[in-house]
């Protein structure tokens, strides 16, 4: 709860809304004890007094009644009506929606048809007809406003219930022999309530406006009772001559509805679990750069050179150092593998190269990424954009999510080209087919006009590769491109990448958690753990003599290609959280070989020849392995 309040308070607009709302409610609550004039006493000789006149702070209305008093009493009533209507509509609507969604089938069909009918009926006319049938009065207006809103709640809640009704926990409850009523009350309802609350919080304002609308049409509270809507309605005839009588309640409605809406937005965001992870933010076009340390000098080690790269995620006051000073390089035609568990920072390293780390919350806090000797960190967006796809291209994991679902694959390929150079209408299709052919997609003439969902996973990944090849880049960064695929398809994709590398002289940075894949493709490997490189060296050497205990354990996790059945050994424990790295070796807590000195001071990456390791008690001494 306090967390919820904190979240709410973080949103300044919502906070403002909450404060105003609280003030309004407070005023409404204390109205009876305030020294106000009687709101219903008329004094027609003193009608239409202007605001700030003596004895009437907000002036008087068309019958000489005190506006301030009527405003406060009216606010009290309008708030009560708005809340009541929202609660009534939400309760009935939710009940209908849950029943419809839970039982499904014919019940659902009949109820939803009914809801459709009500929704097709212009809602003002429905409300008007209800009030005409029931007779006027605020209570009847409340019923009408609630009634016309029931279908909206019903429809909303039904949609969510349908989703829930097929979840495992509901099935389990059914198998356990619980009655439907019990399941609805104990399993469904608790999951739906946040949605109801959100929907309600956004509806209250609307309810107050609608009641005001009915009063405008002359169907509202009974005189002399004041509610904001009828005040506005009664003042309407004097709008031109005495605008203050309508402006006062009008502004009050505005204030209430606005603060409710601001607060409602805040509540919605605060209840949304994704906000906590910062996932409600939209990523900017390029990762934010905030380098606090001096930029390291270039050393000219390769085509792409990453030096002491530090990428952080700033989430709610915490600082997750996803990449904590990584240095890497890759030469033309070379294939570098980066390997590690999920959360080791390997993908973030790769994405940092072209500023593709989602930001917020990502920030590049230090280091340099040099392409052909020029630093890309902090480069203007225009330059980054020009290089993306043309010099450095990416292949991502899970092509169903990474391809745009609503564009044909051919168009997505062509777009990749068109982003960097103009291409003719005729030429582009030919080029797209050519690209599909290059990644060995059968029948490319037909496939070019497929949508991604019409293709298999392997096909989609080939499209992803074709897209990366579209502009003949020098470097391809492949972020776990085969993870989602089955083994045969995986092998095909790997051999395709390998062929392309050799035929086009591509440099590949290949990110994976699978040593089997590395063995097949990569010249060199860097092993990452908790945002840092813990071992680096030629693939063959590392496979033969892993130095870091982590590398050894990682290799043990993988069935060796052609190695027959072997027991898969999971690494016990979890990687440390990167906002609170322990002193010394980050792996120490999970390492069977950890000793006292592993947990002290900074452990450096020791380099010997082609091999490097960040361990003071390696599996094999570094010098031995390097020879």
């Amino acid at each position, binding site marked *: 709860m306090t967390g919820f309040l904190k979240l709410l308070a973080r949103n300044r607009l919502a906070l403002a809304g909450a404060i105003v709302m609280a003030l309004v409610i407070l005023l409404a609550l204390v109205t009876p004890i305030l020294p106000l004039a009687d709101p*219903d006493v008329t004094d*027609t000789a003193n*009608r239409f007094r202007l605001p700030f006149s003596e004895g009437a702070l907000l002036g008087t209305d*068309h*019958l000489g009644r005190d506006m301030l008093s009527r405003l406060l009493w009216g606010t009290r009533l309008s708030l009560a009506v708005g809340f009541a209507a929202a609660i009534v509509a939400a309760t009935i609507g939710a009940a209908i929606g849950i029943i419809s969604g839970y039982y499904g089938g014919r019940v659902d069909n009949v109820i939803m048809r009914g809801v459709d009918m009500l929704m097709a009926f212009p809602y003002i006319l429905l409300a008007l007809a209800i009030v005409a049938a029931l*007779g006027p009065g605020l209570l009847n207006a409340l019923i009408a406003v609630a009634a016309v809103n029931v279908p909206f709640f019903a429809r909303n809640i039904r949609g969510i219930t349908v989703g829930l009704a097929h979840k495992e926990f509901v099935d389990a409850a059914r198998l356990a022999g619980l009655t439907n009523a019990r399941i609805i009350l104990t399993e469904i309802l608790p999951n739906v309530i946040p949605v109801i609350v959100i929907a309600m919080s956004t509806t209250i304002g609307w309810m107050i406006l609608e009641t005001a609308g009915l009063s405008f049409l002359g169907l509202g509270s009974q005189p002399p009772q004041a509610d904001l809507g009828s005040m506005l309605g009664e003042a309407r*005839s004097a709008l*031109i*001559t*005495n605008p203050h009588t309508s402006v006062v309640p009008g502004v009050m409605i505005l204030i209430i509805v606005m603060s409710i809406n601001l607060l409602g937005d805040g509540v919605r965001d605060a209840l949304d679990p994704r906000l906590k992870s910062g996932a409600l933010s939209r990523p900017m076009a390029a990762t934010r750069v905030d380098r606090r340390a001096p930029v390291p000098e270039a050393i000219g080690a390769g085509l792409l050179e990453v030096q002491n790269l530090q990428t952080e995620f700033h989430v709610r006051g915490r600082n997750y150092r996803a990449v904590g000073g990584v240095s890497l390089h890759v030469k033309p035609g070379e294939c570098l593998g980066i390997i590690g568990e999920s959360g080791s920072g390997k993908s973030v390293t790769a994405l940092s190269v072209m500023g593709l780390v989602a930001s917020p919350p990502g920030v590049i806090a230090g280091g340099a990424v040099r392409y052909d000797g020029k630093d890309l960190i902090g480069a203007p967006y225009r330059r980054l954009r020009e290089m993306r796809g043309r010099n450095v291209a990416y292949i991502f994991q899970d092509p169903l999510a990474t391809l745009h679902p609503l564009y044909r694959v051919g168009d997505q390929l062509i777009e990749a080209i068109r982003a960097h150079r103009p291409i003719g209408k005729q030429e582009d299709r030919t080029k797209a087919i050519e690209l599909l052919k290059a990644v060995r997609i059968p029948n490319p003439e037909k496939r070019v006009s497929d949508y991604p969902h019409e293709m298999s996973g392997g096909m989609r990944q080939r499209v992803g590769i074709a897209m990366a090849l579209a502009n003949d880049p020098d470097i391809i960064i492949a972020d776990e491109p085969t993870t989602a695929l089955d083994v045969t398809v995986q092998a095909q994709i790997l051999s395709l990448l390998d062929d392309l590398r050799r035929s086009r002289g591509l440099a590949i940075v290949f990110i994976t958690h699978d040593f089997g894949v590395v063995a097949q493709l990569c010249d060199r490997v860097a092993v990452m753990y908790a945002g840092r490189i813990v071992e680096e060296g030629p693939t063959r050497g590392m496979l033969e003599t892993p130095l870091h205990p982590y590398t050894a354990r990682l290799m043990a996790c993988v069935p060796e290609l052609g190695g027959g059945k072997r027991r898969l050994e999971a690494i016990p424990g979890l990687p440390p959280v990167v906002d609170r790295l322990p002193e010394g070796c980050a792996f120490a807590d999970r390492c069977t070989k950890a000793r006292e000195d592993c947990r002290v001071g900074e452990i450096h990456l020791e380099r010997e020849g082609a091999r490097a390791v960040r361990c003071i008690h390696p599996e094999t001494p570094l010098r031995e392995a390097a020879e």
Partner: protein
Amino acid sequence: MSLVSFSRRGVLAAGTTLALMLGAASLAQAQTPPGVLIVGQIAEPKSLDPAAVTAVNDFRILMNVYDGLVRYKDGTLEVEPALATDWTISEDGTEYTFTLRDGVSFHDGSAFDAEAVKFNFDRMLDESHPFHDTGPFPLAFFFSAVENVEVVDPLTVKFTLNAPYAPFLSNLAYPTGLIVSPAAVEAGGADFGRNPSGTGPFKFGEWRSNEAVVIEANPDYWDGAPELQAVVFRPITDANTRTAEMLAGGIDLMVEVPPVALSEFQGEQYSVFEQAGPHVWFLILNAKEGPFADKLVRQAANYAINKEALVNNVLEGTAEVAAGPTPPAFAWAYNPDLEPYPYDPEKAKELLAEAGAEGASLTFYVTEGGSGMLDPIAMGTAMQADLEAVGFDVTIETYEWNTFLGEVNPGLEGKADMAEMAWMTNDPDTLPFLALRTDAWPDKGGFNSGYYSNPKVDELLEAARVATDQEERAKLYKEMQVIVQEDAPWVFVANWKQNAVTSDRVENFSLQPSFFLLLDDVVKN
């Protein structure tokens, strides 16, 4: 860069360009052409068939397109010749013989004669008439006394009544008695209401639904061609919008100006007109049961309500305090000696104490609006406050007009103690005869919803209805008014002064006590 500020600016800019672009057009439009009078009406007419309509709003158009056999003399409610040049009434008051004006023809070219008159009344009254199905004719009962219409010769027509009926002539001057062209009814059938033809100073031009009814000058009008070339009636239901149109110059003449808007029209460029009419705004009191069964309590209510404040403040002087059941506009029948109940809360409290009705709780039916109801909610609320000040406990129930009538007309018994009501009539007979007699209780088909009953009043009203001599009738009505005021079956509140505003381009305009709008002498520069 924010899109909204951009779009706001964009909209403003677009609006400005648009305005500049259309500037010429809009300005020209604001300046209405001379010779064409544009009237802001309160609603779309139902029909232009005078026998089929009931609303004053529709009458305002009809009176300019049709003539009746007789009409009200300018500025009065007394009848004078129109299509009939002369008439005689038989001794027993049951036969009316009219001499018709020679040489008059309808706008469609057909001639006006005795056959046409007979056609008109038979269509309304005779269910076997071939064109009776062009109805329904809701106000046909105005002529329910007519037994037979006879063509004596082409220019003489004789009405035979089943009993003497004094208001007959006055009813003939009412829009229900306007004469339509039989040829046009035969040609148009049920569509006649949209293709009307009469003998009036203006002939029908066009009817653009929800936009305008246009009538054009009839150069051959028997009473002299009108000055205007045409009149356009625009239905503008919302009073604010009507006021805004008047201020913006979109209309030249506006009727039923909301009281609070009158102050907008004080300047040189407008003229405000007022005319008291045959209208009474009153509260029906339930004399059958509850506190108002006691005459003292009814009188107390009359003393308690500050009518001066109501008419001067709530209605901004658009009405005068009513003294009794008959409005002063019926000059010949009104009793000028009658003084309204003064505002005297102390007296009211005394009466209440005398009747032992202190703190009586009352249910008060209020309507939201309706024909002749002046700002009924504000009025009801103010009266509620006055009544509470002398010790009543008043609960208001408001109803939309039709529901209200559905509740009030069948009688207040068992439901309410008081109800707002207003009547506009054309004869001093109508309202008291329909709403104050014992035989007019709701169960007998009348409008005496408060169950007032005084045999003397009944007797006076019956006698006045059959007397054919106006002076005789006047005496009876004046006596009735004294008794009714003393008995206080109603709270007599106000007599409405109809108002209108014209722009300074309009001349020779005046309002009629009949509430009709007569435009044949109006000039627009």
